[in-house]
């Protein structure tokens, strides 16, 4: 909110006015941030043994309260407000995205809080292989800093798609990313890989933030304001320096596309997804993508709407590249987490297909897709945490050989998630794909849809390959075992339920997404 205050501050030597803040409308974010701060205090004041038992309920209550408040905001009237002096938009799509992030965060929390097979290092600051690490591991301490860190990240994710000016958005981006960089490095097993992932993510993320900030500066130079609506006004007046504007839009786009992992800014995804503790990968693959996509759509739909004839060809190119490269590179992967990372790249491409339509249907389709994909992906990563051998998770594809024989239920559920990713009818993946493709065809982007279905066919190949390995190969003698902790099992069950319901009876969720998109974004 600091950034919001700064952005709204008038220039010159006037007295600094107290910004007018609508606390009610901002409550979901405030709750999450407040609970996160409380979580830090818990770390300081509660004894080590009982921290876990305080942190988990606290985090859950925070997320549920924020979600309830979001529902309240959405239900009370047709939300279409600019709050905090215009820095935060409270409108249908934003509330939808925020609600989605909160629910998916709750599901991820189940994975993060799993104690039976914790995925986190006992002490983050202990060097890998050091004595300190051995001591803490032997003492059986559990890491509880993850909970406040996760809440800060979720708070950033709530703010990111709601930001109506670029500076607020930048602040949200950082609030969201910094805890994630940290969380990535906390894996209990293969810590070097995890720390490498964290460093990579941090460096590339910082780089992309710089792009974003540079773009913001240039756009400020062009429009004299960082407010999206002011930029839109300036664009419709067709005044100012075109060079500044184009360079600004371009650089800003790099920053945003990096976050959703569109090609050619996808390089971080496989490494980070592989190295991060799997519950965090689940959080990133679902919540971060949802939030980042919400922000991307807000910027393009509000700020650059008048410029759509210029950015559309560019987005076409990015969408095509993202779908094709994501699907093709995924074929060669042998690690399941990397494979899902590339699959997530391909899915970002499908989402972009819906986005380029710049219509209500496109927005609604993309919103639905985000929900559908989010649940399936959290479920899939949850299954990955369950399949373990002596060295922790057995994420290498060859280790999954014959899993269908060993534990048919788990393998069957994972196969179901994969079929949903592939977009087979009667799963949520199909409904989502249909929604965005329909919007794209209506928006005269049929060639994009053709590329989309062709890359779906390619993508189907590697999803199917995993099924082949699980079901049609003979199990190894020393294959991994399936360990299903209660919380993880609950997360998987939620993922399966959502994938089935959104595939078979998608009407209520489609209606909700449709309602959310009726007025589009507030300016």
């Amino acid at each position, binding site marked *: 909110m600091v950034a919001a205050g700064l952005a709204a501050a008038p220039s010159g030597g006037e007295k600094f006015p107290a910004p007018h803040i609508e606390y009610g409308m901002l409550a979901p974010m405030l709750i999450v941030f407040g609970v996160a701060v409380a979580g830090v205090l818990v770390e300081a004041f509660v004894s080590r043994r009982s921290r876990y038992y305080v942190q988990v309920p606290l985090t859950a209550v925070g997320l549920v309260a924020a979600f309830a408040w979001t529902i309240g905001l959405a239900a009370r009237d047709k939300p279409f407000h600019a709050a905090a002096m215009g820095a935060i938009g409270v409108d249908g799509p934003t509330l939808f995205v925020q609600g989605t992030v909160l629910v998916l965060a709750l599901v991820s929390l189940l994975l993060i809080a799993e104690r039976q097979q914790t995925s986190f290092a006992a002490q983050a600051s202990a060097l890998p292989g050091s004595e300190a690490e051995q001591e803490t591991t032997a003492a059986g301490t559990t890491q509880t800093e993850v909970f406040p860190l996760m809440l800060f990240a979720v708070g950033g994710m709530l703010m990111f798609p709601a930001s109506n000016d670029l500076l607020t958005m930048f602040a949200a981006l950082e609030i969201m990313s910094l805890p994630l960089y940290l969380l990535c490095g906390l894996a209990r097993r293969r810590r070097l890989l995890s720390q490498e992932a964290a460093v990579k993510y941090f460096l590339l993320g910082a780089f992309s933030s710089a792009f974003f900030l540079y773009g913001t500066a240039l756009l400020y130079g062009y429009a004299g304001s960082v407010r999206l609506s002011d930029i839109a006004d300036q664009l419709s007046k067709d005044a100012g320096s075109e060079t500044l504007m184009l360079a600004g839009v371009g650089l800003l786009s790099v920053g945003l596309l990096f976050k959703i992992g569109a090609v050619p800014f996808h390089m971080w995804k496989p490494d980070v997804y592989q190295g991060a503790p799997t519950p965090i990968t689940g959080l990133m693959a679902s919540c971060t993508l949802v939030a980042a996509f919400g922000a991307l759509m807000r910027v393009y739909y509000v700020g650059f709407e008048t410029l759509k004839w210029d950015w559309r060809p560019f987005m076409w190119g990015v969408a095509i590249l993202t779908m094709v490269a994501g699907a093709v590179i995924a074929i060669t992967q042998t690690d399941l987490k990397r494979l899902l990372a590339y699959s997530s790249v391909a899915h970002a491409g499908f989402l972009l297909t819906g986005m380029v339509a710049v219509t209500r249907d496109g927005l*609604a389709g993309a919103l639905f897709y985000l929900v559908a994909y989010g649940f399936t992906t959290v479920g899939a990563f949850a299954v990955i945490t369950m399949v373990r051998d002596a060295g922790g998770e057995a994420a290498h594809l060859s280790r999954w050989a014959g899993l*269908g*024989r060993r534990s048919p239920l788990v393998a069957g559920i994972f196969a179901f998630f994969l*079929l949903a990713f*592939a977009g*087979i*009818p*009667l799963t949520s993946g*199909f*409904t989502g794909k*249909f*929604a965005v*493709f*329909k919007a794209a*065809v*209506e928006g005269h982007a*049929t060639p994009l*849809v*053709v590329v989309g*279905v*062709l890359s*779906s*066919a390619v993508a*189907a*190949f590697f999803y*199917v*390959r995993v*099924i*082949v390995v699980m*079901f*049609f*190969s*003979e199990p190894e003698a020393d294959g991994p075992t399936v360990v299903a902790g209660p919380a993880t099992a609950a997360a998987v069950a939620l993922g399966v339920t959502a994938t089935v319901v959104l595939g078979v009876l*998608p*009407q209520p969720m*489609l*209606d909700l997404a*449709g309602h959310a998109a009726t007025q589009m974004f507030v300016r």
Partner: protein
Amino acid sequence: MTDFPWLSVLIALPALGALAVGLLPRENETLAKQAALGISLVEAVLAIVMTTAFKVGGDRFQFTEKYWWIKQFGVHWAVGVDGVALVLVLLSVVLVPLVVIASWDEAGRSGGTDTPPKRSAKVYFALLLALEAMMVGVFAATDVFLFYVFFEAMLIPVYFIIGYYGGPQRSYAAVKFLLYSLFGGLLMLVSVVWLYPLSQEKLGHGTFMFEELNTMHVDGTTAKWLFLGFFVAFAIKAPMVPVHTWLPDAAAQSPAGALVLVVGVLDKVGTYGMLRFCLELFPGAAKWATPVVLALAVISIVYGAVLAIGQVDLKRLVAYTSVSHFGFIVLGVFAMTSQGQSGATLYMVNHGFSTGALFLLVGFMIARRNSARIDAFGGVQKVAPVLAGTFLVAGLSGLSLPGLSTFVSELMVLVGTFSRHRVPAVLAASGIVLAAIYILWTYQRTMGGPAREEVKGMPDLSLREKVAVAPIIAIIVAMGFFPQPVLKAINPSVEKGLARVDVRDPAPKITGNVAENGARP
């Protein structure tokens, strides 16, 4: 009685049955088999009872139901059958219980030489029932979106059946099958998606209801693209040369029981889709494409037959004969005459039964010798006369011997085609000669001659196997002599379809000739 939601029940029963069988305890396989048999028998009886309520000459689509499914996309749960769909639904539900009986012992035992550990039989039967639900659904759907959903979802049970219960190369065959079909299906998805904005434009409201879509007149380039999207998917499914290569592989690896359904019913969705969707939704484009399609059909007929002659594996052989037969069906569909199309529809049913019988028998033979190679047999007739005899009847039906079912349909297709397109009809007729070679030569090599040493101890058909095959043989003979009842149901639907396409039969004289063969009521 007509208010009863017949078709929904017919779809729901095996679907729920599949769930129930899947949830049965693993140890009690007999119970799973009995449950599957019971459910599929009830399904067959229900479908036959429904058929008696079908009014020939009534509305085109009967037993219709229509509820909103996904309003946002304009999608209905809409089912209904015309004559064509009805006979195909019947074909499916009659074959399933027979397949269940035929697979009684085979299920759970992998075919081929490297017999892997025993597999769960209950899952196999659950998958069969799931497949049955989708087969009924795909023929009954009168909403294009719903059709698409069944069309794609159907692949999954088949994929698992081939990949889990198939021969040594099963995973290769299963993946090839799935990818070919998915590729076609996804191209079709583009067309399906496109129909929505198109219907908004032409009809004022977005819809996927078949009977509304076929009233809009789509033409020009759009229609051609849409047609191609549908056609490629159906051609892969059917399968036509040059996209047929998945079938021999799938056939060689699939367990014989499931193969009956894959080739006998599943592939009919391709030709059924051409007749229903390609022609009626895009008549202009269909006419535009006719020369190429006819050429491909003739190539399929001849090429499939020639390759069949050269096969050494019995399942691959039957698969190639099917490629040839599907060529005939496509030829009949695109001849755009009422004889041609009625003949093609009848052919779909007949082919389902005669090829079904062949695959079942081949399956029995393989179970006895643990090999599918032709040279593993010889002189079977001496030791297993019933097996040889039924094989001969099924084979003769395949080569269109008069008095057996396929003859009527093949003749109708050829005559119907000849009246409009002479050259393709003449070329296609060579398929009959080739069929005589591949069937009789195969019979001679496997059944005729002195009994080989390895074959000597081969038992004849058991009671269970006889029960599985006998009904099909009876149907083959019955339909050879009395195709009338089926044709009566098919003809009005075909004519209504042709009226949509806006073509009239060319020479009335030829219609008169066909009447002698019982084509016309």
